[in-house]
């Protein structure tokens, strides 16, 4: 089973998302949470990171953290799926292990 990677820092602040996408194996998943949700926004200087992972890695974003930052769902990169905390729990259960990119 594949890994679930969690990224909680903005790609404008740290390179965790870039490293994660570069090293994550095909078929694994990434959950963007906390300030990491900015990586899921389209039309930014860092949008190509997540957009480029399409077809290789499934990308999820934590809805409550989007709401807390006033990022509406129509601003998300195509293919990014929104989950709530319950969905976060399901993702952890569905993957063999979770790797936090702190």
């Amino acid at each position, binding site marked *: 089973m594949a890994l679930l990677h969690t990224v909680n820092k903005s790609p404008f602040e740290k390179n965790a998302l870039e490293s994660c996408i570069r090293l994550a194996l095909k078929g694994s998943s990434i959950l963007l949470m*906390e300030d990491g949700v900015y990586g899921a926004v389209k039309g930014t200087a860092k949008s190509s990171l997540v957009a480029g992972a399409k077809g290789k890695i499934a990308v999820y974003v934590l809805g*409550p953290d989007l709401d807390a930052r006033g990022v509406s769902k129509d601003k998300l990169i195509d293919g990014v799926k929104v989950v709530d905390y*319950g969905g*976060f*729990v399901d993702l952890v*259960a569905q993957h063999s*292990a*979770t790797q936090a990119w702190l």
Partner: protein
Amino acid sequence: MKFGILVNEGPYTHQASDSAYQFTKAALAKGHTIDRVFFYHDGVNNGTRFTTPPTDDRNLVNLWGGLAKEHNIDMVVCVAAAQRRGICDADEAKRHGKDGNNLADGFRISGLGQLIELGIQADRLVVFGD
């Protein structure tokens, strides 16, 4: 499924303690088991009962303590990280000649062995930090 939670960041620092708390609540609501939450590094600051946020703000220490009591979760604060940051229970205070103690209800002080055990016994270990 059995989940283990590791919190490496203090409350009101960024968001890790909040995220971990919300995740823990959601996992319990879905019927999963959380046997232990381990507080390491600055995460030990989640375990001081002297925390006094403004009354209209969430009190993370009390929230964690309440969750632990309600669901019988073992909340472990790393002893070495706690000593460095001035977190101690009555025994630790006596041992080190301190004039008081500040460990919050629902927490206990123990060692890294508890984290290793958690990693072995839990089906999934989820890490929250800065």
